[in-house]
């Protein structure tokens, strides 16, 4: 009876149909379980991404209350070439040029120092990784106090610029960069340490026995062998640094005299959207940020295929 019922279920339909039905059921299940993720991506990633291109074509008059009107491509060139935007872009590039090299060099130095198997090394590794969990808000509060002209460490160290660092047109951007460097240090250390672990110790040991000094070994062996890791770290932290916003928002703010000197890209976009109430111009700037991110990602993929590696 059991055998017969199993047979019953299988045989009446021709084999080809069952296979096709099964395929169809499998595809149906696939689309069903893909749906939640695709719905989120569609609504909150792709739709707004493509809508940026539409927003670009509309200009909002500076007078509040008037509706946006269609201007086609005419808004793009003036926005991209406006002093406000080019200054913001230059500020961001200077910021990135401060943050990325310094945080990566410090991270690499810590990773090399922590690479030896010593007693208690796990504690040092934990300390060096720790800033990765710091949020931009925590880092800003911490450094905002350290940089404070009255209660901070600066007066004690005898460094006391007037006006104070965060209100000083020369020092505000470097100060924000220092905060970001500290915050990036943990990530940089973690990435560099992981890379170092893939460098064979025997190779470095052999070089040491052959009489290569620590300096030579570092530059001639560690750095070249680590180049794929370093490249990855450069790309990732450059992308992150271009997205910086919180430290400027918390420590500088809209009323500050140095605002134009720390007007990084995202800060400028938020300001264009919310203060100037101009979504069209904001969309154009956001698209520039996208193009920067895209070219960095493409660069990374090209290099990963070829592997930056000489050994």
């Amino acid at each position, binding site marked *: 009876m059991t055998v017969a019922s199993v047979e019953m279920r299988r045989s009446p339909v021709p084999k080809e149909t069952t296979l096709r039905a099964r395929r169809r059921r499998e595809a149906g299940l696939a689309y069903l379980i893909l749906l939640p993720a695709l719905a989120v991506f569609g609504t909150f*990633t792709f739709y707004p991404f493509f809508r940026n291109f539409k927003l670009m074509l509309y200009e909002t008059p500076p007078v509040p209350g008037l509706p946006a009107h269609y201007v086609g491509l005419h808004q793009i060139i003036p926005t991209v070439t406006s002093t406000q935007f080019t200054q913001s872009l230059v500020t961001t590039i200077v910021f990135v040029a401060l943050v990325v090299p310094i945080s990566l060099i410090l991270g690499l130095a810590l990773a090399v120092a922590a690479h030896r198997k010593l007693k208690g090394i796990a504690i040092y590794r934990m300390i060096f*990784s720790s800033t990765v*969990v710091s*949020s*931009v808000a925590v880092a800003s509060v911490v450094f905002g106090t350290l940089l404070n002209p009255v209660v901070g460490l600066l007066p004690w160290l005898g460094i006391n610029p007037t006006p104070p660092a965060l209100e000083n047109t020369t020092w505000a951007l470097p100060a924000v960069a220092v905060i970001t460097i500290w915050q990036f240090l943990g990530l940089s250390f973690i990435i560099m340490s992981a890379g170092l672990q893939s460098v064979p110790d025997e190779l470095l040991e052999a070089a040491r026995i052959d009489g290569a000094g620590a300096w030579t070994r570092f530059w001639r062996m560690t750095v070249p062998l680590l180049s794929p890791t370093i490249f990855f770290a450069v790309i990732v932290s450059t992308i992150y640094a271009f997205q910086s916003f919180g430290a400027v928002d918390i420590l500088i703010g809209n009323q500050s005299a140095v605002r134009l000197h720390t007007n990084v890209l995202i800060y400028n976009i938020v300001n264009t959207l919310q203060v100037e109430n101009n979504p069209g111009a904001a969309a154009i700037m956001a698209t520039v940020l996208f193009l920067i991110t895209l070219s960095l990602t493409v660069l990374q993929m090209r290099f990963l295929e070829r592997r930056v590696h000489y050994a």
Partner: protein
Amino acid sequence: MPEASAARRSRRWRTAGSYAALTIGAIIVLVPIYFTIVNSLLQPDQLAHQPPRLIPPAAQWHDYRTAWDSGQLSRYMTTSAIMTVSIVAGQLVTSVLAAYAFAFLRFPFKRTLFLVCLGTLMIPFEVTFITNLDTVSSLGWFNTYEGLAVPFLATGFGIFLLRQAFLQIPKDLQEAATLDGYGHWRFMARVAVPLARPSLAALGVFSFLAAWNQYLWPLLATGGTTPLNTVQIGLKQLVGTSPDQIPVALAGAVIAFVPLVILLLIFQKQLVRSLTAGAVK
């Protein structure tokens, strides 16, 4: 023999040098955190003391109470916790489901859809927030938990990470499960997910960190001055210009930082795994 002792001595010197370098590094990294903790325990009038105090003369915990109560940090911590847990849970579920489809099922447009998921990695949230603000408002989600969490309920990174983990599962195992009469749901729950636990943990820790520390979106999606602020935005409110506010803001920073330090202490390995995914190999 003297040669051997010379070698031993030079190695001892090298070890001492390493410890010196490590300790200098540790001091540089920890100084900001250390002074934050010390200053948060001082009276406002002790802050300007020169040279800065290394040890608080008498620990004053009342700034923590001020930050927690009148600084409303208790409420902000709750908001952050609810938002973070929703995002982590949502990302784990949507990533498991989507990754399962890409790893184990055959269907038309599989490659295209996978590339679509990876494509999201190239579009940072900073590019899409302009329209997302409109979307969230028109859904009536401005200043709500939905508005804070729903845009982040799926992640291309998570799908990629879990697909890799699922693809490691031996084909034999899948065939054996099929022979045992396992359907896809049962195979997912009993075999695939348990075997992918390390990757799930890595993804979970990574999304927790990212969600808890978010700044731009919680600021925009709540307007920044409402009871539904996350703890990060709450910190911005605590940063006052008056010196007697400083210990309170610092206490707030410590409170906001502690959950993540605990996370790091417990899940360091998983965190490192997720942060370096794609870096090596």
